[in-house]
C-alpha cells in the first residue's frame, strides 16, 4: 500500500478511537489532599509545622433537570397484558393500575405488612374473623367526575369474581369467599372444574344453577348505600384478606362507566355472558377510569405509557409519616427499551430519570453514582451517603419478593421415554423415576449445593440464603431457623445411606435442564455438577439447555428430575409462599407423596385461616421445620435489588410487594 493509503487508514482508526473514548465512563476527579506549611511559636522557639487540611466532605450539590414536570422512566420492555384490574396478573400492568386506581386499603408506605385506609375510611372485623365491614370514603371522584359509592365498590369486586378466568388473580378472592381449593367462579356451578375457562359450556349450564352461583357472589360481597358500607362475608377466617384487597385486583371501578364500556351489567341472570373474558377481549383492556393520583393519557403497546397528574385526587393524609399527600410531577412517561446500550445512552444524556439497569451492567453504571443508599431492614428506609458529584443516586440492598429454587420431582414421569433420567434405573447410567423419594438423596443434594458460589456467580454477591420456603421479613420467617449448608462430608454420608448404599456403590447419571439464556438456572445446575463430580466421577450430572417452550413443557409434565423455577409473590403474606410451594403449583409438579402433602396441607390451611399474627408465625415456623426435615427442594437465596435514579428525583421508598415502580405520587423532580 502507498504512504497515502496508510495515512488514510491511520486517520480512520484515530477517529474510531476518539469515538470509543467518548463512550467510556467519565473519569472521576482525583481527590487532592491539601497540605500547607505554617510557622508557629513553640516554647519560645519558632518552628515550621506541616499541617494537613481536614478534607471537607463533598458539599450537597443541587441537581436540576431540564424538565421537572415530566418523569421519564425507562424499563426493559413494555409488555402490559391488560389494564382490566380484575384480569391483569403481571407487574407491567400493575405499575399502571396501582397509580390510576385506588383500593379500599393500601400499604403504610414501605411497610409490607401494615395497612392504612384508602377508599375505605375504616373497617371492622367480626370476632370469628369471617366478616369484614368497610366504611366507604365520601367525596371521592372518579377521573370522569362521577362520585364513588358503596355500590361501585361492591360491583367492582363482584364483577371481578364473576368474570373468572383461572389465569387471572381472581382465585385470590374465590378461596376466601368460597373455601380453600375453589379457584374459579365456574366451580360454583360445576365443582369438578370442567367448566373453568369454558364460557360456552357455562352458558349452556342450568340457568337456576347460574343464578344461584351469582347470588353466592353477591351475598359474599354486599353493600349498604345508606350506611355507606361494604361487607365481605368469608367462608373461613383469612389471614391475608387485607393484603388481597390492597393489590391491583382490589381496584375500584365506576359501575355506570364500566357497564357503558360493555362489562357485566350487574344482573345475576346475565353474568355467564361476561364470564371467561381474556386480557384481549375484556372491554377494559385499554380503558381506564379510576380514582387514583394519576390518569392514563395514552398506552402505545410495545412502546410507552403516559400518565398525567390528577389534580383532584382525594388524599389528604399521608400513608406513612412524612409521606406526601398529592402528586407533584405532572407527567410520567414510561418507555420500554429492550437494548441496554440505548438505555445507558439515555441515562448519560440525562433523559432517563429512572432506568432499568441489568445486574450484569451495574459495574458500568456505578461510576455515575454520587449518592449511595443502603436499605435498612429495621426502618424499612435507606441510609444514604454522598460520595461525590456524580449524577445518580443508588438504592441497594432492597429485599426482593421473588426467589428461584431447585425442586426435586418425587415421581418422575417416564411416559413415552425420558432422557433426563438416563436408563431409568439405578445402574450407574441413570436414576429410577422415584430416585428423590429417598430422603438421603434429597439431603445429599442439599449438602452438595454451594450457596456462596451461587450468590457470587449468579447474583453478583447481592443476596442472602434463606432458611425455609418463606422470604426474610415475612410473618413466620426465622432468619436463624435451620438451613442446609454446603458440606461435602455430609453429602458423602447421605449418599452412602441413599437407596441402602446402592447410590454410593453404583453412582448415578441424570440431566438437569435450564432454559437457554437463564444464567441463574444454569449456574445452579453447574454447581451441582461440579460438586458431585468432585466427590466421585460416577455421580454424573449433565446439563442441558432447552428453548423456553420445551423447558416449560418438560417441567409441567414432571419429566425433569430437578426443575429450577422462580416465584414472584402476589401478596406479601406467608400463605402466598406456603400454598404454591407446599401444596399448590410446585408441590403438584413435584408429585409430593400423599403423606407429606397431607401434613403440609394441614399446616397451610391452619396458617391461612388464622388471623392472629403471632399464632400464624408459629404455624409457619412449624411448616418451615417440616420443610427442612423433608427437604423437598433446595431453597436457594433471595436477591437484594438495586434501584438507580437521577439525583434530581426524590421521594423514593421501597415496599417489597410493589417493587420500585409503586406509587409515582410520592416522587418529586427538581
Amino acid at each position, binding site marked *: *500500500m*502507498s504512504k*497515502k*493509503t496508510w495515512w*488514510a*487508514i491511520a486517520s*480512520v482508526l484515530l477517529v*474510531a478511537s476518539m*469515538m*470509543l473514548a*467518548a*463512550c467510556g465512563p467519565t473519569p472521576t476527579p482525583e481527590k487532592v489532599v491539601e497540605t500547607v506549611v505554617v510557622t508557629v511559636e513553640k516554647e519560645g522557639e519558632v518552628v515550621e509545622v506541616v499541617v494537613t487540611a481536614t478534607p471537607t466532605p463533598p458539599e450537597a450539590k443541587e441537581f436540576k433537570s431540564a424538565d421537572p414536570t*415530566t418523569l*421519564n422512566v425507562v424499563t426493559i*420492555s413494555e*409488555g*402490559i*397484558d*391488560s389494564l382490566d384490574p380484575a384480569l391483569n396478573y403481571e407487574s407491567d400492568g400493575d405499575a399502571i393500575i396501582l397509580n390510576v386506581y385506588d383500593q379500599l386499603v393500601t400499604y403504610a408506605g414501605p411497610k409490607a405488612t401494615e395497612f392504612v385506609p384508602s377508599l375505605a375510611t375504616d373497617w371492622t372485623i367480626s370476632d370469628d374473623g369471617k366478616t369484614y365491614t368497610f366504611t366507604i370514603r365520601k367525596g371521592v371522584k372518579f377521573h370522569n367526575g362521577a362520585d364513588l359509592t358503596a355500590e361501585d365498590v361492591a360491583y367492582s369486586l363482584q364483577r371481578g369474581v364473576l368474570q373468572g378466568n*383461572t*389465569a387471572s388473580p381472581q382465585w385470590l378472592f374465590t378461596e376466601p369467599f368460597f373455601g380453600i381449593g375453589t379457584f374459579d367462579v365456574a366451580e360454583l356451578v360445576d365443582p369438578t372444574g*370442567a367448566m*373453568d*375457562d*369454558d*364460557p*360456552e*359450556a357455562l352458558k349452556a349450564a342450568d340457568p337456576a344453577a347460574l343464578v344461584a352461583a351469582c347470588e353466592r357472589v353477591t351475598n359474599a360481597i354486599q353493600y349498604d348505600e345508606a350506611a355507606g358500607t361494604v361487607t365481605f362475608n368469608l367462608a373461613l377466617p383469612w389471614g391475608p384478606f387485607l393484603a388481597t384487597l390492597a393489590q391491583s385486583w382490589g381496584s375500584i371501578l365506576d359501575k355506570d362507566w364500566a357497564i357503558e364500556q360493555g362489562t357485566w351489567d350487574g344482573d345475576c341472570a346475565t353474568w355467564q355472558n361476561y364470564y371467561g373474558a*381474556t*386480557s*384481549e*377481549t375484556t372491554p377494559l383492556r385499554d380503558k381506564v377510569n379510576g380514582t387514583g393520583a394519576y390518569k392514563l393519557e*395514552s398506552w*402505545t*403497546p*410495545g*412502546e410507552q405509557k*403516559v400518565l398525567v397528574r390528577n389534580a383532584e385526587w382525594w388524599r389528604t393524609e399521608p400513608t406513612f409519616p412524612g409521606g406526601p399527600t398529592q402528586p407533584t410531577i405532572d*407527567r410520567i*412517561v414510561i*418507555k420500554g*427499551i*429492550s*437494548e441496554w*446500550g*440505548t438505555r*445507558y*445512552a*439515555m441515562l*448519560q*444524556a*440525562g*433523559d432517563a430519570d429512572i432506568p432499568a439497569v441489568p445486574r450484569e451492567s451495574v459495574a458500568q453504571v456505578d461510576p455515575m453514582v454520587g449518592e449511595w443508599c443502603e436499605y435498612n431492614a429495621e426502618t424499612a428506609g435507606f441510609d444514604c451517603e454522598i460520595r461525590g458529584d456524580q449524577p445518580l443516586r443508588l438504592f441497594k440492598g432492597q429485599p426482593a419478593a421473588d426467589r428461584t429454587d431447585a425442586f426435586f420431582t418425587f415421581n418422575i414421569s417416564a411416559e413415552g421415554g425420558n432422557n433426563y433420567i438416563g436408563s431409568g434405573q439405578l445402574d450407574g447410567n441413570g436414576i429410577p423415576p422415584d430416585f428423590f423419594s429417598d430422603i438421603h438423596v434429597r439431603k445429599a443434594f442439599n449438602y452438595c449445593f454451594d450457596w456462596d458460589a451461587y450468590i457470587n456467580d449468579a447474583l453478583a454477591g447481592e443476596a442472602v440464603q434463606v432458611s425455609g420456603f418463606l422470604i426474610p421479613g415475612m410473618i413466620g420467617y426465622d432468619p436463624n431457623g435451620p438451613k442446609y449448608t454446603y458440606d461435602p462430608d455430609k453429602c458423602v454420608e447421605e449418599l452412602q445411606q441413599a437407596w441402602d448404599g446402592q447410590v454410593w456403590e453404583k453412582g448415578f447419571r441424570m440431566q438437569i435442564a435450564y432454559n437457554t439464556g437463564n444464567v441463574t438456572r444454569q449456574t445452579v445446575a453447574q454447581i451441582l455438577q461440579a460438586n458431585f463430580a468432585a466427590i466421585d466421577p460416577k455421580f454424573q450430572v449433565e446439563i442441558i439447555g432447552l*428453548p*423456553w*417452550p420445551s423447558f416449560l413443557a418438560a417441567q409441567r409434565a414432571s419429566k425433569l428430575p430437578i426443575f429450577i423455577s422462580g416465584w414472584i409473590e402476589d401478596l406479601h403474606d406467608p400463605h402466598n409462599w406456603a400454598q404454591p410451594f407446599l401444596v399448590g403449583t410446585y408441590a403438584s409438579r413435584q408429585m409430593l407423596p400423599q403423606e407429606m402433602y397431607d401434613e403440609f396441607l394441614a399446616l397451610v390451611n391452619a396458617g391461612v385461616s388464622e388471623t392472629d399474627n403471632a399464632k400464624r408465625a408459629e404455624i409457619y415456623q412449624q411448616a418451615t421445620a417440616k420443610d427442612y426435615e423433608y427437604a423437598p427442594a433446595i431453597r436457594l437465596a433471595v436477591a437484594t435489588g438495586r434501584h438507580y435514579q437521577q439525583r434530581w428525583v426524590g421521594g423514593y421508598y421501597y415496599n417489597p410487594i410493589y417493587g420500585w415502580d409503586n406509587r409515582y405520587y410520592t416522587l418529586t423532580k427538581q
Partner: protein
Amino acid sequence: MLNYIIRRLLMVPLLLFGVTVLIFAMLQALSPVERSALYVRDIPKNDQALQGIIKRYGLDQPIYVQYWRWLVGFKDPQSGEIRGGILRGDFGYSRTASQPVGDLLARRFPATLEMALLAVLPVVAGGIFLGVIGAVYHNKPLDHIVRIFGIIGWSLPDFVFGLLLLMAFYAATGWFPPGRISDWADQVINSPVFHSYTKLNVLDALLNLRFDVFWDALRHLVLPVITLAYLWWALTLRVTRSSMLETLRQDYIVTARAKGLSERVVIRKHALPNGLMPVVTLSGNTVVGLLSGVVIVETVFNYPGIGMAAARAAVNLDVITVLAFVLLNGLILVLANLVVDILYAYIDPRVRLD
C-alpha cells in the same frame, strides 16, 4: 414496452399466490392449538374448550379449506362475524404486541417506511457518486479513500456503528436522541389540531407547517438513517465502482475518447448509463433491504418500526406475528422487483425483447 409491463403485471398475482402458499405451508408446521391464534385472541387452557375452538374454526378441515379461510376469512357459525382473512387485513392476534397484527403493521410500517425513504436517497445517490469517483480516479488516493470507506462500512456491524453514533452524538452531546419523536412533539401530533395525512411525521409536520415538530422528527431520524445509509453505501459504491471500471475499459469508451469528447461527456453520456445497469437491480434490493433489514438499527435506536416488532415477536416465538412480517416482506419484494424490472426494460431495450 407496454406489452412488457402488462406481462410483468400479470405475473404479480401469481407470485403473490406463491408467497401466500409458502407462508401457509409454514403455518401448517404449527399445531392446531397454535394456529387458533389466527382466530381467537386467547388460546383456552381447558382441553374441551380447545377442541371446541379447533372445530369451530375448521382447523381440522382439509388443507385447501383452511387455506381459503385463511385467505378470505369465513363466517363464525356462533357469532355470525367474519373472522380471519389476510385479504381483509386480519392476520390474527399478536401475543407479543398485545394487539391485532393488522393494527401493529398499520402503526409500525409508516415509521419504517419513513426511515427507509430518508435513507434510500443518500444510499443510492451517495453510493453511485462515490462509486463513480472511485472508478474515475482508479488507483489514485481518492479511490483508496473511497475503498477504505466502503470496506469499513461493509465490515462494521450495524449495532456497533449505531451504538458508537449513539454514544458520541446523543449520550455525550444530546443532539440526536433515540426513539421516533419527543414526548412534547408526540402530544402535538396527537392533538386535534394536527392532521396526520401520511403518518410520516416529517412530511406531516411540514404539511401542518409545524417546523418545530419537523425538526424534532428529523433529528430522531438522523442517526438511524446515517447508520443504515453507511452500511448500504458500502455495497452500492462497490458495485458501482466495479461496474464503472469494467465499462470504462470497453472499446466504445476508447472510441468516444478518440473522437475528442471531453472526459466529463464520456463518463456522463457514455459510461454512466451502461455502468449503472447492475446498480438499478441493486437499488431494488436496497429498498427491500432497508424495509426489511432494519431490525438491528430500530432496536439500537429504539425506533418503533416493524423491524423492532418483528424481532420481539421472533425471540418470543410469536409465530403468527413473525409470519405476517414474512408475508409483508414477500409483498414488498415482489413489488420492488416489478419496479426494477420495468426500470431495467426502460434503460435496456434488449430486456423487453426477451
